[in-house]
């Protein structure tokens, strides 16, 4: 009896890892690239300039500041992109980087129209799903009773991740494809790199969803209740003042006077 159970368990574990090729990797392998996509990709590679990250300077920050998010190191994306990755939009970069603490890159940037994904918490260290519960949210579940616990530290390695047919769609650094890409980036030609870069990026959306996709009760890109949020937490997420403030922006370059709005 126990012997059979052991065999079943072992096979299950093996099948999980053997068949764990996520949807994103399948899409990469199945994508047929056009000439234009490859040319655009090569152009980006040639334009690229490495950024020397200066984390510590002789003049330290005046205020005690946040730390680098260690969970980002488990993502394949930060092998090429900076960590934290969002740098361009002056208005949204800090907030988007803040979301990388609890949202996987693929959640926002891998949104195939012909596939129905469901979203779950995942431990990025081993790729295992994590049971949904209210404790995983930054917003404390019982903040009304304990105001001092209104904001709490996040669990650094649990992130909302897209799943397809019980497999996380994320591309991990430990995947053979990611490792092969890293080798190619060191020794490959520009043409090889351009093809690889295009195949990685074509299945993705460069721009993520608007804030309202999650912070508006009517849109619900993510079902926060299914992710474990209780009513209080869900209400706070749907009525987030920053998301509402950002909804006022009509274009990326505009500036809005903030006095009196955030008080």
């Amino acid at each position, binding site marked *: 009896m126990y012997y059979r159970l052991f065999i079943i368990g072992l096979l299950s574990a093996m099948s999980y890892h053997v068949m764990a090729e996520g949807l994103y990797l399948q899409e990469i392998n199945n994508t047929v690239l056009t000439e234009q996509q490859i040319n655009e990709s090569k152009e980006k590679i040639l334009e690229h300039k490495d*950024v*020397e*990250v*200066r*984390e510590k*300077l*002789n*003049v*330290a*920050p*005046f*205020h*005690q*500041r*946040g730390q*680098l*998010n260690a969970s980002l190191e488990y993502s394949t994306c930060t092998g090429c992109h*900076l960590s*934290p990755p*969002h*740098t361009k939009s*002056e*208005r949204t*970069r*800090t*907030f988007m*980087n*803040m979301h*990388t*603490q609890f949202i996987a890159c693929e959640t926002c940037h891998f949104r195939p129209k012909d596939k129905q994904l469901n979203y779950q918490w995942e431990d990025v260290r081993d790729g295992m799903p994590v049971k949904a519960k209210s404790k995983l949210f*930054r917003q404390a579940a019982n903040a009304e009773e304990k105001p001092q616990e209104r*904001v709490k*530290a*996040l669990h650094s390695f649990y992130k909302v991740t897209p799943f397809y047919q019980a497999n996380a769609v994320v591309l991990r650094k430990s995947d053979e494809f990611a490792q092969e890409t890293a080798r190619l980036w060191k020794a490959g030609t520009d043409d090889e790199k351009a093809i690889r870069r295009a195949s990685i990026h074509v299945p993705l959306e460069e721009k993520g969803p608007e804030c309202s996709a999650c912070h508006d009760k009517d849109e619900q890109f993510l079902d926060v209740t299914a992710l474990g949020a209780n009513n209080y937490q869900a209400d706070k997420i749907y009525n987030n*003042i*920053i998301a509402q*403030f950002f909804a006022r922006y009509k274009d990326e370059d505009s*500036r*809005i*006077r*903030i*006095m009196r709005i*955030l*008080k």
Partner: protein
Amino acid sequence: MIRSFFLLFICLLSFNADAGPRYSDPDGCLSCHVYEGLNFIDENGVFRSATIDSEHYASSLHGSVPCKDCHREVIDYPHKVENTEVDCGASCHIEEPSEGVKYSHDVIHEEMDKSVHADGWYKGLTGGNRLEEVETEQDPSCRRCHSNTAYIAEAQLEKFKEAFDHAETECGNCHQGKAWMGQFGGHILRRFVGRRWNNIENNQLCIQCHGDIEAMRDVTQEDKETHEKHPPSERFVQSSASYTKTLHGRLIDANSDFGASCIDCHAPEGWKHEIRAYTDEKSASHPDNLGESCGQSNCHGYTKKPGNEGFTMTDMHSLSLLGLHSMEKPLEDADLWQSNWFRGALPLMLAGIALAIGSLAWWILYRTDKKIIAKFGGDRFERVMIGRKPKKARAKAATAKKTRVPKKVEATTVVDAAPEATAKADTPIAEAKTTPTTPSVEKSAESTAVVDTEKEATETVVKKPASISESAETPKKSDDSES
């Protein structure tokens, strides 16, 4: 009665106005900045963070200062960089309670302006121009040395809590209400619990720049009169290294209260920021002012008196100090061979090592031997005082004896080598002479000694300790003599 009531009302009103609770975020800045992880890497590759740890800020030096007291022009989002610039010399909305004067760091800036660090940035400070400051400015800005640290240093926290508990009963008797205690009581008590930084930490501020030899070589100095720019002297470049060799530096390293810190000598007065060049007549380290500076706080009080000026001529940054090495772990000191002290002491060290090894060898090999060592003049003494033949003559006679066949005589009496006999034998027997043993004698003699029959044929042969038998004047004994 009505007048008294009115006065009481006014008093209560004024008390509330002065000592009401303060909020550090009246403008709602923390609505966004409180979020953890508001990080990004800017166009220069500098890791930036817009997160403000609200708990840390509330308990920091500026915990009761609203953000807009420093970041005055922030009115829109995204914030324009120029609108976030901070001027440390500006007055903020914190008021001195007795006269209502707004607080400002400008008095400190005024001191800095007179110092050698006058060009350090004190305004226009933003999170984004730290790299520019590092790359372009050699003088320290306010923020290079100061950050928004906790209001009560961690090392002082227990002491502060103890004092604060006491204050609630003593001060709180009159100053009732948490607002007063929080705003003023805490402030006063913080000053009573002592200095925030000790001398080691004070020095570290200076050493973080002046201890960087390469950075100091890149410093450009300006002549005060001619305004001619020139590279720094080696004495200046090495000033931190030479200081650490002095008694001042070593005492502070040992956490002693008697060590003089950089500030103690270079900016002892005022707000401790007026560091002038030693060539400046107003400088505390100018030769004319050293008597006063060295004599402060009774460190070297006698230097203030006439006739003791010579003491102040000691150069505390002399390059010759660099040759001094710590001898706590001499073998780990890579520059040991550069030290004249070490090279000078080396012959003595080698001689000492040789002496130690020789002494050890002697102790191992000869410690049981008692030798009569011919002292200087011993031979002459024997010739003059007891009429003995000179050493050379005796040696000649001994050689002559060897040529003759010695006559073997068995000793008449053999005394067992009892302790008493041994004690007797310890007394020198000046005239007793035993003849050198020949191989044949050595083989045949058992419990006997061979003696010179010409002189001591009838003398009792006593088993003697080896020290005597092997003395310079005594021929060798048989190996069997001790059996």
